[in-house]
């Protein structure tokens, strides 16, 4: 299962999906988050390599969605 971890006030919520069967649903969720101002990062669970993600692909096993960023 691939996951999108969405950060929020009560910790992260996990949206888990099967990339083979639920890609459409996951993409819709991904787009919804993007349109709400979330920044999405792909994190490789093994190497911990991190990339900014603009489009959701099956290969992205774990995506972390963070709310809008501002200067501290």
């Amino acid at each position: 299962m691939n996951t999108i971890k969405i950060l929020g006030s009560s910790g992260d919520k996990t949206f888990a999906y099967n990339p083979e069967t639920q890609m459409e649903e996951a993409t819709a969720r991904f787009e919804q988050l993007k349109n709400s101002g979330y920044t999405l990062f792909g994190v490789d669970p093994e190497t911990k390599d991190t990339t900014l993600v603009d489009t959701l692909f099956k290969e992205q096993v774990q995506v972390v969605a963070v709310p809008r960023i501002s200067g501290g």
Partner: protein
Amino acid sequence: MMVGIDISQFDEFLTEIIHQASVEAQNMAVRAMRQTGRWEVDVSNSQGYRLHQTFIDRNLFEQAMEQHRQGGLVVTNHTIRASPPTPSIDMDEISSAAMYTPDIVECYELREMPHPRAYMGGYGPRMMQHVVSTTEAVLDGPPDLDMDYFGSYTPIKRKANTKARELFMECLTESELEEFKNFSTVTIRTKIGLFRVEIQDDEFGHGDPPAYNVIHNDNRCCAILGSGGIPRYDHYLMQVLLIKSNPSRFVEEANARRIR
């Protein structure tokens, strides 16, 4: 029509469904109750004490039950009860239930349907925030109530912060994790130089964002998450992820001041 079924514990599959349902329910708002095809779901323990209530897609629920029938779901003494959505909702009842019996949980997008008392004397919004946050707390078991000076339930925030800390650590490499554990810092080498993120525990769970906790080129700078009430470790996680993936954007986003 009610469907009752006993299971002994939430296995991963069912937990995922509950998570998904929570997210969906929040987004769908109270209107979702009247929408056909969505069911109201109660999760109770063996004493009939309600642990969790949410809305779930009927198909997802039936999938879970099918898996249960085939022996895919392990266990127990919890009961899941599902019924078609009720036609109306008493917001008064929800907020008082959430205030006095935090095990009873409702998951709603409250911004779309604020409580009538939401804007009175600063008392209402806190209550709304509590209603939302309890949902997560219940997944980890009933929270013990302990009010802080500001009337908020610190154990819940502490749980959120612990959860955020776990995710933060999950996203670090071994060497970064080692550094974090020993020195409470995470150092990241990038094309535009070295960044050192200083981590300070939010011991009391007040959720204050960090301030100027990143050191880069002799400057202290900081970028935080715009939404309020976010666990501090979520800010740290965002900083680390953004620095690793696009350090220039981090510098653009961050306010900086010179170290004297």
